[in-house]
């Protein structure tokens, strides 16, 4: 048994063993009774404010560049809190009474933090802002230094009060064994980031976490949502075993020999290596819009070319399916000036934008893709999002022709990729045969397909029970799509959340899917599920699942 077990919320169903490195250690205030040199303390306070301001400005600019102006605004607010004259005069006065600068700062902020804590809603968030500013000053005044997250020793487990977007972006999944935070929930930024990197993480462990000291050996158990302090040999072995045992690097086939491609969904270059390390055969969905987020202008052709070539080089033997720009809906990009729409999910999103307002961006992207296809090691496939009509598909194919003509004019080497259509709309399900005649593959995006088939908003919890791809309506839509695609010599993949659920692998194989693509973290589990499935036996169960009337009957056929 571990010396101690803390419980929070697991962010990633993985375990990691490592040594604690505190990111923002608790601050120890100096002894307030000791005599201090007033002038020296005043100078120290002034220096700390100046340094804090410089730090905030640097972080502000970095965040504006990387994430966006909206996210950077918080640093502007912090600068104003830092330089608030009320704080300044309270600190000066307190130092005049013989208090050390750090204690004076702690007192001055404490009063206002308490005041804001007692308020509701947005006002209570101001208490967090003041705490952040206070801690920044105290760290400077007490000589505490933050560790450099980008340069941690191998096997580090990062502990922190919380991790911000700019913090998490620095973590290197190659060296960090996991992280654990005092605050945060499953949907906090840090948790989402951890999942995309398959990094073991537990969030929301509470104040108790502060008791764990630097250098302590811990297991981050993301499955159970626990932090095991000083694990015993069995716990240590279990965590280490889990770190590698599951990964199947080779391509997998069912027990009766049908090969199924198990690929990863990625959105950023940093997610490529973790996907390969978890045994993904390739990329089944490269969300290119992520290359457009976190910045103030679109990436140019060369930058996109390099990102995609990296992906192809990461999977030299595999296939990389790139989805062209899919914005609109819930994905907003400030510099593209998207219109306000009553129903953005039914509005100008996906290919609809690429064919009209973003036609130039689309053509630039296609040129980058065609060039990458020629130079990268793996096999490039390109698919179009939210296609509803054959006309849209034909226009998209024409745009590929135009991009190729541009490159011919420039005398640049390129290769035409295999093309595909994402099946996300009911129209695409009904038109699957016509699409399949015109492209090499279809890929079913179950998150949107479920939303549109069931007319249930993905984000609306009140209709959450409808947003389930095992409703017979969705199962039949998937079955029909695969059938029509195969009848017209196209292969079919799936790249929604459903593909990563090993409980439905049997059903999906029975429905005839050729490829499954998912978050990197679930690749090992699905590979195991595929290799344990007997394909010929799944066909009959899947046929039943397509004939039954209710969701519970679908679940019965899956059992």
């Amino acid at each position, binding site marked *: 048994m571990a010396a101690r077990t803390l419980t929070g919320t697991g962010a990633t169903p993985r375990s990691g063993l490592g040594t604690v490195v505190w990111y923002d250690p608790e601050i120890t205030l100096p002894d307030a009774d000791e005599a201090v040199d007033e002038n020296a303390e005043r100078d120290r306070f002034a220096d700390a404010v100046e340094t804090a301001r410089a730090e905030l400005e640097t972080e502000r600019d970095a965040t504006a560049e990387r994430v966006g102006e909206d996210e950077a605004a918080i640093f*502007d*607010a912090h600068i104003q809190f830092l330089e608030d004259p009320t704080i300044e005069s309270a600190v000066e006065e307190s130092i005049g009474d013989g208090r050390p600068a750090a204690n004076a700062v702690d007192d001055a902020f404490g009063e206002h933090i308490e005041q804001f804590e007692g308020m509701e809603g947005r006002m209570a968030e101001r208490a967090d802002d003041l705490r952040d500013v206070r801690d920044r000053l105290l760290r400077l005044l007490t000589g505490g230094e933050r560790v450099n997250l980008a340069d941690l020793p191998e096997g580090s487990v990062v502990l922190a009060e919380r991790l911000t977007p700019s913090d998490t972006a620095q973590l290197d999944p190659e060296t960090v064994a996991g992280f654990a935070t005092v605050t945060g929930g499953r949907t906090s930024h840090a948790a989402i980031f951890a999942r995309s990197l398959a990094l073991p993480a537990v969030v929301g462990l509470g104040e108790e976490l502060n008791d764990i000291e630097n250098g302590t050996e811990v297991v981050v158990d993301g499955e159970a949502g626990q932090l095991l302090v000083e694990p015993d040999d069995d716990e240590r072995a279990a965590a280490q075993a889990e770190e590698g045992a599951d990964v199947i690097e080779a391509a997998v086939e069912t027990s009766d020999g049908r090969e199924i491609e198990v690929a990863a969904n990625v959105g950023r270059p940093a997610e490529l290596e973790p996907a390969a390390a978890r045994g993904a055969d390739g990329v089944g969905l490269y969300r290119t819009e992520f290359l457009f987020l976190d910045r103030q202008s679109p990436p140019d052709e060369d930058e996109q070319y390099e990102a995609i070539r990296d992906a192809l080089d990461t999977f030299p033997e595999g296939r990389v399916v790139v989805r062209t720009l899919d914005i609109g809906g819930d994905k907003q990009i*400030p510099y593209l000036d998207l219109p306000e729409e009553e129903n953005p999910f039914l509005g100008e999103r996906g290919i609809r934008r690429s064919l009209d307002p973003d036609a130039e961006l689309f053509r630039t992207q296609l040129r980058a893709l065609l060039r990458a296809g020629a130079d990268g090691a793996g096999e490039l496939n390109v698919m179009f999002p939210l296609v509803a009509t054959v006309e849209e598909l034909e226009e998209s194919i024409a745009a590929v022709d135009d991009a190729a003509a541009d490159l011919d004019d420039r005398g640049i080497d390129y290769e035409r990729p295999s093309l595909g259509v994402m099946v996300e709309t009911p129209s695409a399900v009904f038109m699957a045969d016509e699409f399949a005649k015109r492209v090499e593959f279809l890929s079913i995006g179950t998150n949107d397909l479920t939303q549109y088939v069931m007319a249930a908003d993905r984000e609306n919890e009140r209709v959450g029970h409808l947003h389930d791809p095992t409703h017979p309506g969705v199962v039949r839509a998937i079955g029909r799509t695969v059938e029509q695609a195969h009848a017209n010599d196209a292969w079919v993949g799936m790249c929604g959340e459903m593909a990563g659920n090993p409980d439905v692998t049997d059903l999906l194989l029975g429905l005839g899917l050729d490829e499954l693509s998912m978050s990197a973290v679930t690749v090992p589990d699905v590979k195991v599920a595929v290799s344990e499935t007997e394909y010929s036996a799944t066909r009959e169960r899947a046929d039943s699942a397509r004939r039954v009337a209710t969701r519970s009957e679908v679940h019965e056929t899956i059992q």
Partner: protein
Amino acid sequence: MSVERTVEIVPEAGLHARPAALFVETVTDHEADVEAGPPDGDLVPAQSMIAVTSLGVGQGDELRLVADGPDAESVLDELERILTTPEDELEA
């Protein structure tokens, strides 16, 4: 001579985050003493971020501004612009 005006808040965030930061920064950059508060309530010093945010002013609320000093008029013009511009159109 002090000048004053009452402005209805347009930014969705109210007087928080970026609008509040810009508001306080603008006051600090002008030669004028500015106070702010509800139309019928106590005023607080507008160069204090803590005081300004603790007013809890939200979108659609009215804010009374009183300025005194050489820049009184120009600071009020600038503050009115900040308070009546939707956040996403606000230039830093």
